């Protein structure tokens, strides 16, 4: 089949989002099942693209309107994009199933629309090969995320959303200034051509442009000084949306940052931008872990833990070596699985017991054994115990950090992991060894999803080689810019 069909990854959610108001006529239940159906279709297409890219070893280049880049916009679905588009679709599918039970407030049609647009935005951010198109997809993701954060219509939700909008607005303005500087200096918006011409760019302009882009994306990617919105948004947003934020919206931001950074390797002042990012990432890990330690709300606690893991990923991306990038991609995959599962289980518990306060989790092991099992596997995996998936990616990140010589960063990050172990084991203690209760019914569909994700965590933990191979291929896609340029069929303009 023709690779251009991969553009359905963008087209399908967009068209289906427009059909939601029509489906609403058939009833509220219909909208929820429609959402499940569309995300299932999207997962199917993403699986096909994934299989195509990994068997042929060649990226799929989708050219908009058959205009060859750099004149037209192109989608670059290489090893990385194929992997993450699949993860985005899969997580969306699981959360659409969860939404059938979890979303009881009106208006459901707007929820379904924003849900699809959030998935579309994240897919586009990962797949695009044009820097301004990246901005547009980032804004689609951000605006649907603002609206979904405020969806519950409580005062808290509106407050969280307002913080997110103000920070996101400043961030996207900075990002746009960065684009203006790069465009003004190079005269192109196509990523492959930027990479080709980057060597001849004025070092100061490049440094300022890159730093502005890193700051702009840091809002979406939750790096330290700009992540104050994240714990609030995670706490106040509907439960399925929280899982989507943590599993892929953040990842799309951090990926865009890494992609743009590595495209401009040839720039003279590149290493000073990397140093800035190393400092930001290390601070993110420490501040988030310390903040998580004193949380009473479990959802908020896991939100801080999620930010800390993103800090680890950013650290690995900021090393500027092949092993660091590979480790970062591997950690992104593992973290998406683990946090998807944790937020799913915690969200279900909060939904059935009316709130995610630590009090509600007393004796959960006796009342809801399946959810308690899911939370336990997720908690143990996040801390990085051997035989669980995050152990492998965390140790690779630490080793890659030591290779480059940032011993201080490795020490600080490891210390933060000890702090992480403290609050997760306190949660496990509350779940299994405190309180009494009798067994209550658990939803079978949600139980099965938790079991499926827990199996993935353990299987990757015991046989990491297969997933590691995939992560290495995806990492090479980001790190090896020469191949990236070669794969995009640039028309002979300006080159």
């Amino acid at each position: 089949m023709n690779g251009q069909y991969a553009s359905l990854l963008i087209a399908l959610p967009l068209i289906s989002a427009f059909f939601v108001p029509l489906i609403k006529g058939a009833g509220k239940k219909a909208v929820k099942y429609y959402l499940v159906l569309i995300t299932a279709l999207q997962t199917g297409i993403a699986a096909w693209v994934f299989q195509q890219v990994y068997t042929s070893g060649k990226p799929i280049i989708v050219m908009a309107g058959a205009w060859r880049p750099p004149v037209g916009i192109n989608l670059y679905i290489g090893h990385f994009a194929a992997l993450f588009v699949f993860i985005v679709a899969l997580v969306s599918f699981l959360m659409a199933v969860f939404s059938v039970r979890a979303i009881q407030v009106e208006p459901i049609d707007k929820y379904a629309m924003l849900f699809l647009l959030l998935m579309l935005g994240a897919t586009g951010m990962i797949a695009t090969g044009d820097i301004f198109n990246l901005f547009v997809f980032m804004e689609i993701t951000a605006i649907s995320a603002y609206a979904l954060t405020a969806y519950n219509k409580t005062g808290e939700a509106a407050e969280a959303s307002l913080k997110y909008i103000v920070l996101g607005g400043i961030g996207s303005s900075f990002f746009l200034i960065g684009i203006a500087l790069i465009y003004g200096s190079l005269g192109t918006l196509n990523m492959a051509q930027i990479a080709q011409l980057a060597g001849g760019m004025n070092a100061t302009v490049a440094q300022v442009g890159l730093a502005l882009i890193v700051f702009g994306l840091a809002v979406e990617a939750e790096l330290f000084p700009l992540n104050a919105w994240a714990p609030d948004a995670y706490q106040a947003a509907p439960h399925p949306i929280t899982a989507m934020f943590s599993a892929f919206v953040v990842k799309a931001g951090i990926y865009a940052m890494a992609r743009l950074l590595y495209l401009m390797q040839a720039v003279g002042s590149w290493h000073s931008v990397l140093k800035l990012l190393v400092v930001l990432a290390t601070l993110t890990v420490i501040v988030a872990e310390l903040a998580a330690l004193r949380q009473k709300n479990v959802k908020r606690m896991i939100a801080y833990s999620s930010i800390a893991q993103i800090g680890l990923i950013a650290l690995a991306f900021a090393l500027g070596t092949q092993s660091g990038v590979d480790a970062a991609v591997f950690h992104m995959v593992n973290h998406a699985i683990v946090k998807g599962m944790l937020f799913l289980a915690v969200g279900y518990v909060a939904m059935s017991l009316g709130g995610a306060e630590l009090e509600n989790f007393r004796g959960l092991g006796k009342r809801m054994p399946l959810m308690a099992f899911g939370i336990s596997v997720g908690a143990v995996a996040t801390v990085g115990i051997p035989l669980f998936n995050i152990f492998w990616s965390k140790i690779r990140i630490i080793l890659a950090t030591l290779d480059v010589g940032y011993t201080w960063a490795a020490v600080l990050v490891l210390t933060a992991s000890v702090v992480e172990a403290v609050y997760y084991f306190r949660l496990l203690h509350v779940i299994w060894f405190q309180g009494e209760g009798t067994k209550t019914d658990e939803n079978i569909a949600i139980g099965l999803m938790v079991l499926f994700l827990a199996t993935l965590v353990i299987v990757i933990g015991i046989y990491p080689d297969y997933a590691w191979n995939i992560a290495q291929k995806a990492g090479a896609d980001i790190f090896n810019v020469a191949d990236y340029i070669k794969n995009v069929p640039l028309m002979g303009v300006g080159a």
Partner: protein
Amino acid sequence: MISVYYFGAISLILIGLYAVLVKKNVLKMLIGLSIMETGVNLLLVSVGYISGRSAPILSEGIGPNQAVDPIPQALVLTAIVIGVATTAMALSVAMIIYERYGTLNVEEIRRLRG
């Protein structure tokens, strides 16, 4: 010498940033955000200006060589729409906040803390 367009655009961005950081009223912060977006848009179009040329519309007597760079204009058109959407979203959130809290002072909107 710095072009007056660049100077004006950067000043607008800084004025907007100042308003967002310093003002206590949510609406004033949103006005600041809007001013900042305007500044960015002005910067984008001035990047594409080529002295002495006219609007990039092909017609009698105006060929591709007498027009300014059209790409930043397409970018700004997109960015303006995005800015309006963000502002509309933010204003509706501000309305909900006023209903629930009875104030628009950011120092009193502090129910979420941890």
